[in-house]
């Protein structure tokens, strides 16, 4: 792991440039030197072509000089490209380092920093603002050196041609050097304002998006729009002014550049006419002067870019001027293995703004002791928990963990000894397993665990899943997984065996909750396509999205008399669904029972519109194909806007038989048909065990099916395998595919797996139902007491009876502390909290 010696915000802009690219920089310098030479050569050739070749009517010389000219141009262009590539690499590397450096820095900043910082602002700083600086750093070496060198070389060349003309040509440039910096200062002022205001705008957007529920709930659109519009208008003004000054610099520069030829014509013309300058030299001079323009312009652009990057960079870094309150890892030792005793004496915590959250709190806990913190919200319970975990730095008193002062420990020491479950725990994008192992792996303090690091076994993981009660959910994720034909063939084979046992043992009992695949029956919970093919496509030409364009299949539909009814079925589904959903907001809930998705709504709306005047047969081919797709998707058990007619049902059943025959005859291997002794790779594991589909969403029914499945898996010894697959379930962005309760259970499991000596739980079970809450409480009492010191912030008072200590907090103080029974008997604060104020 790279050690950050100097925090990113303290580094100068140019330090990033020289940090990582030394080799490239040297290469760049060499290329630049060659380029400058290659740029000069054509000028000399120009002169020679006019004077020696054309002037002397020497064809031989013309060829040679033109050849050299061409070669020089080719080399210069090629090198220009090389320079660009090097610039891009250097710039992007510097930007990359800057981003990493700033990101690594900001993760360590104290929580108080984030209370005044919006995520949107941080994102915009790292992504957008730093990019300006990175782009600049790309240019930072090549541009000034190339162009200054070119300028100098050309200037010298001009002087060798004619010193008088050279003086006239160059006389205007010093003017620029005086005026431009003044203009630039004004530009910088507006750029600073731009950076600040853009930052405010990013924050505002971030805030609105985080608070979207509140905004929509209060319908405060006008209010929010006004806030945004006001700021946006301010940015508009600032950006316009900023650009006015920026362009002022450019215009001035252009003017000077264009003035020079005028001077050359006057003086050069005079000299030439009076015979003091040959024509070839004048041509060369004009050529050289024109070539001065580009480097000069580039230098000016560079100057501006530097100023902009400077302003943007330092303005951005200034914002992150804060230090981590504690070192990340100990420099000269391994992280401490502390005992679990906690001593808090006279601890106080006052925020930056002077608000006192804790005052004079003292409490001691022996290793393995359990303490509940209760009190009204705002009484300081969570704050105390945060101080113990070093997330807040207490401002007075002493707080020690295993005899060592918490303020003096490193983050790694804390992570090595304390587990924290917060009230709304954060679940990261990734799989269940990744989230489960998060705290465990983080404790190692490495980017990735190596082969030598001990990892929890599957049994360990299953144990915590069971302890926290998320096991059944994970099992369900596993059962809903789709196996891969190449990777999971063994398991598939075993499941087919299990399927038969399942059918024998539970088939009858679950008959009305599951629709079993039967070759002679129409499946109401499967699509028309599945009913027709009664199998899974092996050939991609027969896959669901491709089959409506497959000639063999289309012919089959025509000959079976299925095409017309399918199209009219599709038409009916289309018009009726659009009729119901056409004007609703695109929410996935509305589309669960629809034959098309939110994304497809617009195209089917258009077709429904056409169907008002035209018949299905009159529609263009693409629309007919879309309707055929719809017809084939029709699943009577789900799509209730149309019902299945008897004649269609028998048509499909007859079609099924013919399809099997036709496929086996003409495209053998294109499908694998549903057979009791074959795994269906397009279906979930659950459907494969059932060899059918669940017909109801009713929780009781699914529970019953689950129980049977679990019993089977236990008997067959596949439970662990399926849970392992379930642990690969992707929880979605920030865990949005999990319920609130599941997220909390997963967070608790994550802390349990780490098996810390001290556990701090901040209303960690608040989103759980009574049953789960009680289970976890019992577990803490039986398995953790005496082993893990527990500080639990509790708002439900019915679970605190068996804690060793209960501390009642009020206004940042502990007002009462002792075992539950004692406090109740005292009839003090706790009694009041539990029984209400008398």
């Amino acid at each position, binding site marked *: 792991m790279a050690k950050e010696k100097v925090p990113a915000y303290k580094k100068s802009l140019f330090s990033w440039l020289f940090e990582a690219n030394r080799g490239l920089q040297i290469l760049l310098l060499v290329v630049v030197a060659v380029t400058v030479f290659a740029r000069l050569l054509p000028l000399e050739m120009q002169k020679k072509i006019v004077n020696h070749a054309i002037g002397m009517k020497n064809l031989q010389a013309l060829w040679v000089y033109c050849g050299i000219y061409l070669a020089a141009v080719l080399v210069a262009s090629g090198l220009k490209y090389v320079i660009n590539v090097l610039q891009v690499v250097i710039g992007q590397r510097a930007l990359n380092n800057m981003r990493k450096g700033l990101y690594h820095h900001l993760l360590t900043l104290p929580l108080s920093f984030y209370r005044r910082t919006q995520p949107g602002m941080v994102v915009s700083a790292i992504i957008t603002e730093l990019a300006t600086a990175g782009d600049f750093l790309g240019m930072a070496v090549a541009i000034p050196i190339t162009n200054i060198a070119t300028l100098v070389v050309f200037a010298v060349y001009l002087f060798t041609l004619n010193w008088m003309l050279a003086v006239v040509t160059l006389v205007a440039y010093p003017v620029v050097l005086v005026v431009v910096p003044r203009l630039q200062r004004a530009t910088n002022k507006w750029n600073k304002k731009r950076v600040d205001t853009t930052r405010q705008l990013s924050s505002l957007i971030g805030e609105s998006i985080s608070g979207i529920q509140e905004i929509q709930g209060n319908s405060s659109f006008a209010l929010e729009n006004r806030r945004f519009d006001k700021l946006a208008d301010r940015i508009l003004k600032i950006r316009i002014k900023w650009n006015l000054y920026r362009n002022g610099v450019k215009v001035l520069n252009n003017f000077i550049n264009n003035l020079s030829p005028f001077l050359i014509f006057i003086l050069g013309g005079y000299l030439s006419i009076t015979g003091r300058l040959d024509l070839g030299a004048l041509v060369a001079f004009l050529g050289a002067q024109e070539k001065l323009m580009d480097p000069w312009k580039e230098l000016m652009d560079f100057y501006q870019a530097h100023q902009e990057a400077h302003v943007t960079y330092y303005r951005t870094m200034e914002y992150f001027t804060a230090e981590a309150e504690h070192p990340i890892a100990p420099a000269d030792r391994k992280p401490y293995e502390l005992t679990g005793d906690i001593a808090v004496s006279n601890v106080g915590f006052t925020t930056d703004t002077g608000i006192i959250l804790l005052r004079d709190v003292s409490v001691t806990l022996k290793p393995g002791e359990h303490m509940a913190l209760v009190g009204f919200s705002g009484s300081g319970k969570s704050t105390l928990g945060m101080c113990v975990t070093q997330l807040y730095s207490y401002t007075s008193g002493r707080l020690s963990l295993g005899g060592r002062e918490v303020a003096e420990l490193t983050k790694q020491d804390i992570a090595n000894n304390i587990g924290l479950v917060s009230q709304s725990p954060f679940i990261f994008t990734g799989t269940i397993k990744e989230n489960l192992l998060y705290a465990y792996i983080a404790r190692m303090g490495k980017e990735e665990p190596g082969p030598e690091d001990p990892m929890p076994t599957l049994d360990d993981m299953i144990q915590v899943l069971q302890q926290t009660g998320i096991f059944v959910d994970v099992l369900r994720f596993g059962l809903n997984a789709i196996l891969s034909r190449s990777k999971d063939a063994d398991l598939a084979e075993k499941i087919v065996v299990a399927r038969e046992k399942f059918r024998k043992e539970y088939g009858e009992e679950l008959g009305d909750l599951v629709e079993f695949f039967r070759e002679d029956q129409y499946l109401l919970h499967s699509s028309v396509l599945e009913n027709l093919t009664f199998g899974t496509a092996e050939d991609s030409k027969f896959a669901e999205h491709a089959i409506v364009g497959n000639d063999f299949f289309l012919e089959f539909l025509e000959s079976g008399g299925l095409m017309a*009814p399918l199209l009219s079925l599709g038409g009916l589904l289309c018009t009726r669904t659009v009729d*119901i959903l056409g004007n609703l907001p695109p929410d996935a809930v509305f589309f669960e029972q629809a034959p098309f998705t939110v994304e497809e709504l617009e195209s089917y709306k258009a077709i429904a519109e056409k169907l008002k005047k035209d018949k299905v047969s009159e529609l263009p081919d693409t629309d007919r194909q879309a309707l055929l797709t719809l017809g084939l998707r029709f699943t009577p058990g789900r799509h209730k806007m149309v019902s299945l007619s008897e004649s269609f049902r028998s048509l499909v059943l007859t079609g099924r038989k013919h399809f099997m025959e036709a496929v086996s005859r003409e495209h053998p291997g294109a499908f694998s048909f549903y057979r009791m002794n074959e795994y269906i790779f397009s279906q979930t594991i659950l459907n494969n065990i059932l060899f059918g589909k669940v017909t*109801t969403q009713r929780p009781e029914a699914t529970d019953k099916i689950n129980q049977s499945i679990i019993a089977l898996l236990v008997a067959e010894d596949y439970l662990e395998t399926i849970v392992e697959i379930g642990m690969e379930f992707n929880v979605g962005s920030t865990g949005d595919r999990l319920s609130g309760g599941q997220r909390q259970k997963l967070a608790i499991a994550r802390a349990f797996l780490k098996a810390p000596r001290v556990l701090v739980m901040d209303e960690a079970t608040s989103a759980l139902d009574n049953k789960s809450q009680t289970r976890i409480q019992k577990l803490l009492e039986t398995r953790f007491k005496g082993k893990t010191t527990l500080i639990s912030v509790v708002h439900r008072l019915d679970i605190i009876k068996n804690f060793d200590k209960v501390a009642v907090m009020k206004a940042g103080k502990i007002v009462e502390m002792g075992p539950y029974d004692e406090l109740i008997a005292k009839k003090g604060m706790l009694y009041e909290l539990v029984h209400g104020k008398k």
Partner: protein
Amino acid sequence: MNSYTEKNEHTHAGEFQENFELLRGVPFFSGLSLECCKVVAYLAVRETVKAGENLFTTGEDDGRAYLFLSGSAELLYESDTGEVAVGTFKTGDFIAGMCLLSPMQRVFTLRARETSTLLVISREKFSKAMESFPHELPRVLKAVVKSIRDWEELFAREHALSCPGCKMRLGVSLL
């Protein structure tokens, strides 16, 4: 556009149309516009339960309202001494509309007495529908308020005066 009456060789209007008509007849939904009621009918699903199965249990927040399409169920109150039957619901009865409006723990248990088919609407889906039709919710609330008022008037007139304990607890319509 309304194409429910459209006849087709291979399909007929079916379950959705039936659900729609059934819900139109329930006072709780009768105030809804046709557009909105169509969506609610579309979101409703049919479930079948067997005798002895619970539709919901005391303390649970299942968030579902039920319209009995066939069969019947018994409403039970869990007293300290055990379950007491306090009522029966049968075909045509609509029950638990209130829980579509807000999270609520069940005070009772509802248990099927025979195989019954129900049209079920969940709070999750119903609130999505209400979000999409912001003017409809007041109409539902109106229907709820009216049914509470009517219930209390009837109760006061027919039962409360003859039962001293009940008399003291009157006033649910004053909530």
